[in-house]
């Protein structure tokens, strides 16, 4: 659009941002990408990928990471949808209070948020203490440093994200549309599945994308709740780089993480409501 005669001012406005991102964001990533293809005597080679991909530990961790994201995401949808629907229907004063409660876990230091689960799941944590004092368990069960602990921690982080995206999607569905469906003979459940869900489908896809990719790349939660016993892609990468000083391995894992997120991020967004409804 021709604006103010300064037709090309927008380039000047974009330039600082573009230059910053190219130098301090894009070029390091490209550097790492190129490094990952560097052979032992220079030239292009896939040897580092072959090494990492053939490593049974890497395969195991990669599959475990995907598996946990596959568990976390549907639970987040199943719990998030009814909760988001409930919140959307509230008066704006109540909604504002509940929304600020929803974003609390997102805004709190992830270390503090995750540490709470140690107090709950630890050897002398709430659950073990209650179960042993009730005589259900004779000695404390190991709850920490398990896949289950990581899943619980990830859920606390990603449920709010799912709820936020769903609430903003459902807010766009007018009450009248729903009332019209009810008046046309839909039951409440039928209305939810035939009207609300299709109309908030874009929000659902966005939520699923954010939760799934987030679960795969999360660091603090698996670091604290899984430790070195239950590694995920990100804790494995950190271990390779900072503990084992295997920079080549870490580089390859970094590239694999980017590719996985980019593929998921763009792949999931290809879903359009029409394909399902």
């Amino acid at each position, binding site marked *: *659009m021709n*604006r103010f005669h300064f037709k090309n001012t*927008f380039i000047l*406005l*974009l330039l*600082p*941002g*573009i230059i910053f*991102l190219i130098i*301090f*964001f894009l070029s*390091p*990533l490209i*550097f*790492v990408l190129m*490094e990952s293809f560097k052979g032992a005597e220079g030239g292009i080679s896939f040897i580092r990928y072959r090494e990492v991909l053939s490593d049974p530990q890497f395969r195991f961790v990669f599959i475990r990471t995907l598996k946990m994201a596959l568990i976390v995401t549907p639970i987040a949808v199943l719990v998030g949808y*009814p*909760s988001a*629907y*409930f919140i959307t229907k509230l008066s704006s004063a109540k909604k*504002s209070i*509940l929304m*600020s*409660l*929803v*974003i*609390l*876990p997102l*805004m*709190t*230091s*992830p*270390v*503090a*948020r995750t*540490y*709470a689960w*140690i*107090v*709950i799941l*630890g050897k*002398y944590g709430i659950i073990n*203490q209650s179960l042993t004092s009730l005589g259900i368990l004779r000695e404390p069960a190991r709850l920490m440093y398990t896949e289950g602990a990581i899943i619980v921690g990830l859920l*606390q982080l990603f*449920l*709010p994200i799912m709820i*936020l995206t769903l609430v903003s999607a459902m807010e766009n569905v007018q009450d009248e549309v729903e009332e019209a469906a009810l008046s046309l003979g839909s039951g409440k*459940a039928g209305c939810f599945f035939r009207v609300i869900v299709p109309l908030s489908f874009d929000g659902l896809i966005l939520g699923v994308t954010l939760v799934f*990719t987030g679960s795969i790349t999360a*660091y*603090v939660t698996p*670091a604290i709740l899984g430790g070195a016993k239950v590694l995920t892609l*990100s804790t494995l990468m950190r271990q390779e*780089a900072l503990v084992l000083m295997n920079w080549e391995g870490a580089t390859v894992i*970094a590239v694999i*993480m*980017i590719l996985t*997120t*980019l593929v998921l*991020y763009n792949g999931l967004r290809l879903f359009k409501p029409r394909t399902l409804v």
Partner: protein
Amino acid sequence: MKRSKLLLFITAVMFVFLLGPFLVIIISSFSSNAVMRFPPEGFSLQWYRKVLNIEMFRTTFWMSLKTGLAATLTALVLGVPVAYTNVRYRYPGKNILELFFSSPAIVPGLVIGFSLLRFFIYVARIPVLTGLYLGHTAILFPYTVRVVSASLRNFDRGIEEAAVSLGSSPLHAFFAVVLPNIQSGLVAAFILAFITSFNNVPVSLFLTGPGVATLPIQMLVYMEYYFDPTISALSSILIVLTVIIIQSTEKLLGISKYM
């Protein structure tokens, strides 16, 4: 009626799950026992005293504060003009450029930190602290663009044109008319970006070194060696601060709209 009770029940359980742990951690921070047990035995403030006495927590707190402020301000300076073009201009290739601008929020933070370490610190030999500041700026940039764009979108561009028709240059109109009216968006962007930086672990993880650590990284290090309610006390302080910030900003700015 039955169904809405079911909805209420699910929502209530969800909130207990989300917020219960915060309550647990606050209660445990007042324990008088060094072993983490629940319910805690006795009441004491010793862990809070300990938090304040550990020098590493104090220095890393200041480091986080300084990094957060510097990175947030830089990200705003870079992000506001980009947000402006997002809302006010149409040009070829805009979609691709917008994707590029949001990519620091899509690429895993761990990878961003790792790449900066490999490239700038090992190859270009820049100081770790500078790398930390740059990495944080990069991940905050998409936030500032998004939040400022949202508030610019609500600002009628006719008002800006009125200023120009009355004799303002476009630049003068921006500072005299646009900026004062998107203040709340700027404040919201500042708060969201600052909190994001202050809490960040993945990017900082690779960009810390001897003498350079942020508070969350220091907490993780401490947890590897000690297991007492000190972290509970520190976490409680951070939780209460967060609650205060959210409560005041949600009332003033409706910050959850920008998330």
